[in-house]
């Protein structure tokens, strides 16, 4: 019998949480977890119509930055000149699994600059 090849892949951390620091809980109250320093209003006092009958569901829509920390407003700061890094195609191929196409990035959303709001400059030259 052929020995199974070792295929394990270990992911690296992108976001690491510091436990106990400015804790936010999005778990419904009454589930053993009181909200601590909860910046976003919890789902207390909601009807089934709000949550479609799900006891723990959050009826709000997920919008980033719904809750603004205090900050001043200025409009005159220069925008960073962002340049896309070069892509090393050779190294891309070297550790690509043999069952996956290497042409899958051909449809990268390069059209992003076309739908800019008028006051947002493109981030690539």
């Amino acid at each position, binding site marked *: 019998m052929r020995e199974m090849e070792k295929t394990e892949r270990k992911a690296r951390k992108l976001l690491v949480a510091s436990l106990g620091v400015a804790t936010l*809980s999005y778990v419904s109250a009454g589930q053993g977890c009181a909200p601590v320093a909860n910046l976003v209003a919890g789902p207390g006092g909601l009807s089934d119509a709000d949550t479609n009958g799900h006891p723990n569901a959050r009826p709000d829509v997920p919008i980033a*930055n*719904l809750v603004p920390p205090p900050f001043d407003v200025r409009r005159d700061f220069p925008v960073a000149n962002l340049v896309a890094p070069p892509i090393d195609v050779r190294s891309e191929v070297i550790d690509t699994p043999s069952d996956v196409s290497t042409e899958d990035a051909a449809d990268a959303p390069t059209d992003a600059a076309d739908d800019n709001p008028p006051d947002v*400059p493109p981030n690539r030259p």
Partner: protein
Amino acid sequence: MTTPRSSPSTNAPAGELFELELLGQGTERRYRRARPEVEAMPWGTLDADKIPADARIAARRAWTAAAFQEHRTGLAVSAALRALFECRAPVDLIAMASRFPLDELVHVELCARMAMELGGGTEIRHDPDFLIVDPDDRLPPLLRAGDMIVRFFCVGEALSIPLLRGTWHAARHPLPRAILGRIVRDEAMHGTFGFIFLDWALPKLDEKDREHLGRAADSTIRAIQRQWNDVRANRNDAYDESVGDALGWMQSDLYLVRAAEAMESRVRKPLRARGIPLSA
């Protein structure tokens, strides 16, 4: 009642910890090639040591929460995408929506890395089974799609356009400004998508269906208004120079003004113009 999962320890907090990973190697390179703007951000230019400890923690919390909200948005747009397939929406409309999950994933990474630049994420506990409200599965596919798209796009994403743009204007340091600029650019398309969908779908729906969509919009608007009430009650109108670069967010009073304007002009008005009855 469903109990959120927690670790085996009886003293462990309820819910799961919000942390993120990258698989790396070829998988990451493929992702980077699809969205090169992530690595092109001016990472490493923010001197977190110059920010007072309290302000830094507030900034870490704000950006971690932003990553979590974008994570939820990714789930929401993915659920809507599935519904578009189920109701056999026009292929080009589905194609337009198929870009949104990747956009949101990029936003998740940008916000998470901003938190890490400031010293690391803060603790967020959540229940992964209840990140969004699913529509009633007894609804027909088109109304199921409409229910989600009205809530996630016609209210949520449409509302976010002027708010995110205002936040982008508020940002001074190149890093948060570049991150917010990227998000603003993507959300512009998300904010108009919901109404494109409605213009296709509404002729196929009857009066009762429109009333259902109105109720879906109402419940979302009310939930957001509750959040705004919380902001209003806890707002801090004192300008704190030390916080500015780290947060890059709008000041609360201005945010509330813009939010109320946006709710009327970007959400209620276009929904009513399409015959969606609203009471919120």
